[in-house]
């Protein structure tokens, strides 16, 4: 649940409880009401001004070199994972697809990026089919081992090959980073947050733009 919320006040997104307690009006109350100094409170951790996660240079499945600037004007969610991950990666991407649905008419103002930590097995063809299975607008990115290592370091993401009986799996950092439409890193979202929490934060970043 939302037990990592750093905000000292109640979350302002239309939680079920808020809707039940005060009717749909709650959903439209101004954010500033509970944020001293007029700053916006988020479900995720506000890391505005962070000196990491500034940019990347990675290929998309069509071989095109991509950087953060390609997605200016949209909120960008970045998640590191691998396709043979049976648990957190599909959960994170399914949640991101839900976020897109919840955004309704703003869906096209969101870009979801999936950076593979397993380029050895995650070929461009697999990556393309994999992200498309969740949402056709999601984009997978990959780099050679050196580029991946540099990117992970820049994003403070760790990943490690772990042998199992018949193959190997990957341990990896499973946070989602959120960028505002100006391309600034703003939030770190944890794996146990809900699609509703994510959507509320994405909306705040869009509305502040």
């Amino acid at each position, binding site marked *: 649940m939302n037990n990592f919320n750093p905000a000292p006040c109640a979350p302002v997104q239309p939680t079920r409880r808020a809707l039940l307690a005060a009717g749909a009006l709650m959903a439209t109350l101004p954010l500033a009401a509970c944020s001293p100094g007029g700053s916006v409170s988020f479900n995720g951790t506000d890391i505005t001004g962070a000196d990491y996660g500034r940019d990347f240079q990675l290929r998309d499945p069509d071989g095109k070199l991509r950087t953060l600037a390609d997605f200016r004007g949209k909120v960008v969610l970045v998640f590191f994972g691998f396709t043979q*991950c049976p648990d957190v990666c599909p959960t994170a*991407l399914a949640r991101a697809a839900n976020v897109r649905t919840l955004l309704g008419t703003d869906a096209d103002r969101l870009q979801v990026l999936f950076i593979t930590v397993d380029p050895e097995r995650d070929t461009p063809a697999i990556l393309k*089919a994999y992200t498309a*299975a969740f949402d056709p607008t999601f984009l997978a990115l990959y780099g050679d081992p050196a580029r991946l290592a540099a990117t992970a370091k820049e994003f403070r993401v*760790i990943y490690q090959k772990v042998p199992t009986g*018949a193959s190997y*799996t990957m*341990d990896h950092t499973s946070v989602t980073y959120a960028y505002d439409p100006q391309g600034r890193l703003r939030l770190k979202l944890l*794996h146990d947050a809900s699609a509703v929490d994510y959507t509320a934060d994405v909306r705040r970043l869009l509305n502040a733009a």
Partner: protein
Amino acid sequence: MHIRSSFTRSLAAAAFMALASASLHAQAQANVSVKDAWVRATVPQQKASGAFMQLQATRDSKLVSVSSPLTPNVEVHEMAMQGDVMRMRQVTTLDLPAGKLVELKPGGYHLMLLNLKAQMKEGDAVPFTLVFEGKDGKRETVEIKAPVRALGATAKPAHAGH
């Protein structure tokens, strides 16, 4: 004890299957129930996926082997979050304390299907042979068919009553 399926283990499983079905008739009630099993779909060329289910044993037991004709390697893995980092480990046996519902679900245990021979498509059914062992060393074999659900599936099947 390795969960990993092997040829000898399959033979053993086949032998125990015969024994187990005989003893099942004698007991008229299975020790272990397997419910709500499902397999996560894959995309073409993807060689691994996860399977999820609920296990419950009436007597203290453990899952000692899982096999499927669609993959040469089935392992039991446990996912755990350490801070922000997702860690995955193979476990060699899965204990089923008497009466306790042991859930294999996202965020915990799952069956890891490796070196898959074909794409897992939504709507297909994947056969599994699960072998359980009681404290007395008696084995029981359960055959199931797990439906393949969408790659983005997160919850239990709709009929699970959640």
